[in-house]
């Protein structure tokens, strides 16, 4: 592959071509399902066809006798194999109700797809054939899918032992909200639905587990975003010393939160490998994954604003009622709370009130899906902004300008501090790019001539908290772990550099981006930097990839590790050149002595550190450094997105005509990779607005049960987006970077829905449920202002 022309010192900020690509383009990638081990057997999980049913009998005897079958187990058969429940890392209140969650259900099935038995056979097909021979008797119970219905009196109880379906009520209130509302000249109140979504990483989940009895040693290869987090939780779940378990995330085909979990099948594969003494592989089928892999969103949302006549918002009061599904997966309870501090958006509000109620339902657990809590918050405030603009007859852009936070750092009413931003600059640039006045003029012209195709313009200005996260804050909000990350740089004696990172990429391009940082700082050609990730035996320290944290946390750990390497190299160089350290200059890997021709580079210092023939007294040989970085603050990207839609008012069809995204994400290491993150994120957010929805029927059957019923957008549905950036570097880290992976998803859904409602304003339409399918849009037009 073509080597880049860029030289050390100029990698950061350049669109260096990705080092990951060649293997992925030529079939040399290794995803979990591509791996085979000697003696490997295949697992197939038998799943409940009912959303809610008492399990009265599980008989695996016929399956055990089938061709090629090695073993078959019910949940009861494996009851003694578990040392702890499948975990939830964030019980958001002191009294959050967490049910016992076994990898196979024994007493009741609590959602369609809940595992009840597992069959192991010599091939994929034989395992699946035999799974159909497992006989399970169920007594069906009533289902409850809607979170508000789940909280109503008399609702079927998902976990009888709690006597309620409420898992928690989480509240945050500051700034005298009730008083502000009592005296507010203007108020608005809106209610919206955040539908359930299915993440749909294109690689299905999969695991391969190996147990070596002689060493009492376990290895798990998993399609996961979180090999490190998996390692300690799975050690707890199956009751083995953490040191005996190695977790490997090989090439991983996308995640978006769906692989940020500790799943039943990961624990099952390990205990089955232990029982059988043979490697066990399980690969999810897509339709199986629609049931067995976490879903996203599922909120009922309410928002009230207290404002003055000029549109200045004084207080926000929000409520979210969240469908948790049947169990608390890793971050099920915390996911809505991840947006809990940004329900005021990028606006300067004094009063802040949020209540989040989590409800168990007989559905697949929800958990972090791209954006995780912040898309929900942003949708609610951005839709309500447009409602206030309509009420005051103000242009939505002008209303936003009147409310933006303009001075930084800024402590939000919710209590956290935004480090930097340029919301007004982003909005101005977005409006300029879309030519706002011209689009408004075209909209007016169409309306004047009675065009059946209405034009709508929708804005979304946002900020979000990512770069998870300062460990002290995580502790204060009851998250069970920290938010640091780590990197090790090892300068090899022959000149190349190995970099070990604690983040775990699955499409984000860490190998390239992180190579750019190291190559620049150490002055090494980029192809001499090797980045190692995704294996807990290669890099023990790390907290993995989610929440737009990899660069903002892991990248800073890496930067600081490079600084440690440089500092040690400087001591070595000063010793070798017989000068004082203070007399050494440093640039792009090279130490120089002013006024002389003496110089030495990091690679030469690495060789001296290796031979150790002549090091300063007491210095350890080797040139290597590890840095564990705990960020002092969250990362605060922001920006302004504008959607332009055309709606055929006779059919209800929505066509996205243009999409402009102007983001403020601090400094950028690799602009092309960043643009790609935004393209993908925006597409997922648009898809929530227009196409995607997980639908259950009244009996709790997932109706959108495969890719045939659930519309994952293709190239035929999407358009080209127009991107730009404004820059307000983060003052909290030395690279001035912020997170970017989720911004597109966070910003885009309300931009599109605001555009749709804007287009339909002449009909009095104030809301359309997502996804805004033609039928819904058409019905909204027929209903007009009547709700």
């Amino acid at each position: 592959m073509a080597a880049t022309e860029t030289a050390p010192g100029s990698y950061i900020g350049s669109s260096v071509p990705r080092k990951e690509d060649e293997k992925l383009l030529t079939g040399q990638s290794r995803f979990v399902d591509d791996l085979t081990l000697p003696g490997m057997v295949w697992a197939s999980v038998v799943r409940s066809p009912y959303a809610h049913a008492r399990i009265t009998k599980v008989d695996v005897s016929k399956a055990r006798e089938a061709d090629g079958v090695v073993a078959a187990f019910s949940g009861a058969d494996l009851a003694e194999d578990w040392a702890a429940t499948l975990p939830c890392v964030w019980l958001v209140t002191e009294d959050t109700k967490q049910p016992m969650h076994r990898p196979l259900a024994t007493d009741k099935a609590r959602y369609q797809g809940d595992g009840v038995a597992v069959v192991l056979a010599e091939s994929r097909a034989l395992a699946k054939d035999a799974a159909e021979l497992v006989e399970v008797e169920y007594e069906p119970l009533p289902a409850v899918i809607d979170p508000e219905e789940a909280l109503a009196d008399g609702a079927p109880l998902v976990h009888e032992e709690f006597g309620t379906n409420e898992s928690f009520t989480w509240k945050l209130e500051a700034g005298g909200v009730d008083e502000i509302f009592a005296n507010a000249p203007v108020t608005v109140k809106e209610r919206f639905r955040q539908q359930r979504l299915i993440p749909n990483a294109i690689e299905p989940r999969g695991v391969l587990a190996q147990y070596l009895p002689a060493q009492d040693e376990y290895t798990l290869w998993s399609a996961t975003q979180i090999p490190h987090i998996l390692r300690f939780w799975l050690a707890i779940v199956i009751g083995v010393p953490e040191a005996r378990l190695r977790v490997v995330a090989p090439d991983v085909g996308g995640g978006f939160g769906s692989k940020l979990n500790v799943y039943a099948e990961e624990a099952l594969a390990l205990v089955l490998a232990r029982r059988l003494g043979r490697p066990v592989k399980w690969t999810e089928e897509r339709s199986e994954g629609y049931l067995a892999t976490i879903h996203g969103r599922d909120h009922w949302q309410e928002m009230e604003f207290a404002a003055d006549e000029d549109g200045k918002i004084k207080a926000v009061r929000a409520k979210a009622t969240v469908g948790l599904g049947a169990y608390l997966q890793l971050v099920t309870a915390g996911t809505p709370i991840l947006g809990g501090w940004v329900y005021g958006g990028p606006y300067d509000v004094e009063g802040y009130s949020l209540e989040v109620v989590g409800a168990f339902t007989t559905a697949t657990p929800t958990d972090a899906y791209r954006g995780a809590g912040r898309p929900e918050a942003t949708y609610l405030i951005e839709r309500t902004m447009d409602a206030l603009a309509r009420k005051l007859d103000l242009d939505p852009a002008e209303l936003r300008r009147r409310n933006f936070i303009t001075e930084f750092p800024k402590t939000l009413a919710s209590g956290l501090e935004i480090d930097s931003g340029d919301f007004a600059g982003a909005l101005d640039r977005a409006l300029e790019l879309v030519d706002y006045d011209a689009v408004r003029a075209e909209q007016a012209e169409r309306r004047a001539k009675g065009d059946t195709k209405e034009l709508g313009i929708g804005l979304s200005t946002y900020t979000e908290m990512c770069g998870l996260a300062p460990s002290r804050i995580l502790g204060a909000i009851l998250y069970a772990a920290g938010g640091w990350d780590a990197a090790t740089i090892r300068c090899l004696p022959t000149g190349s550099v190995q970099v070990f990172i604690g983040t775990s990429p699955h499409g984000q391009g860490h190998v390239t981006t992180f190579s750019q940082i190291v190559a620049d700082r150490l002055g090494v050609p980029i192809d001499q930097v090797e980045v190692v990730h995704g294996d807990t035996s290669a890099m023990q320290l790390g907290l993995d990839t989610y929440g737009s944290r990899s660069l903002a946390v892991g990248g800073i750990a890496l930067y600081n590790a490079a600084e440690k390497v440089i500092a040690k190299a400087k001591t070595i160089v000063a010793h070798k050149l017989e000068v004082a350290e203070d007399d050494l200059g440093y640039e792009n890997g090279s130490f120089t002595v002013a006024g002389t021709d003496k110089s030495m580079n990091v690679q030469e210092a690495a060789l001296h550190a290796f031979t150790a023939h002549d090091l300063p007294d007491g210095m350890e040989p080797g040139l290597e450094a590890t840095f564990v970085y705990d960020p002092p603050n969250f990362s605060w990207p922001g920006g302004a997105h504008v959607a332009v839609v055309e709606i055929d008012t006779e059919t209800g069809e929505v066509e996205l005509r243009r999409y402009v995204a102007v983001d403020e994400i601090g400094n950028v290491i690799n602009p092309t990779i960043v643009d790609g993150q935004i393209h993908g994120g925006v597409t997922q957010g648009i898809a929530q607005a227009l196409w995607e929805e997980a639908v259950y029927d009244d009996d709790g059957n997932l109706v959108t049960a495969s890719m045939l019923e659930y519309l994952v957008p293709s190239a035929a549905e999407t358009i080209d987006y127009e991107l730009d950036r404004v820059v307000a570097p983060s003052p909290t880290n030395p690279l001035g970077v912020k997170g970017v992976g989720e911004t597109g998803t966070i910003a885009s859904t309300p931009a599109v829905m605001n555009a749709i409602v804007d287009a339909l304003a002449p009909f009095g339409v104030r809301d359309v449920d997502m996804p805004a399918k033609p039928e819904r849009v058409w019905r909204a037009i027929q209903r007009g202002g009547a709700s």
Partner: protein
Amino acid sequence: EAEVEPRQLLVYFLREQLGLTGTVVGCDTSSCGACTVLLDGESVKACTVLAVQADGAEVTTIEGLASNGALHPVQQAFHEQHALQCGFCTPGMVLATVGLLAESPSPSDDEIRLALEGNLCRCTGYQNIVKAVKAAAA
């Protein structure tokens, strides 16, 4: 020459009998196109073809596309235009593009978008894929 079960799908024959794991499986409804290969030069979803149906045919998988260490122009264009992120859909997307360009050497944006409708990507939003297809066609 290989013996196959009558129900064996081409994609599993390639992956599990021949060890050609570059062709991947992303769904069970012939929706995602991740398993796209060329069958006598035409792109097909290998999950929708029985292995026996490929008897006597020429199958090109992603492993066979680069020649003499040089990427195929479509692979090169995907690299240069950053048309892949996680890379799981990429073999199918590349082979679907090779199939498209064999039929229509200079497709418009709309033609490209329609032609790739059967290949899903969750990472890129397709913008750079369309750019790559155009670049490969040029």
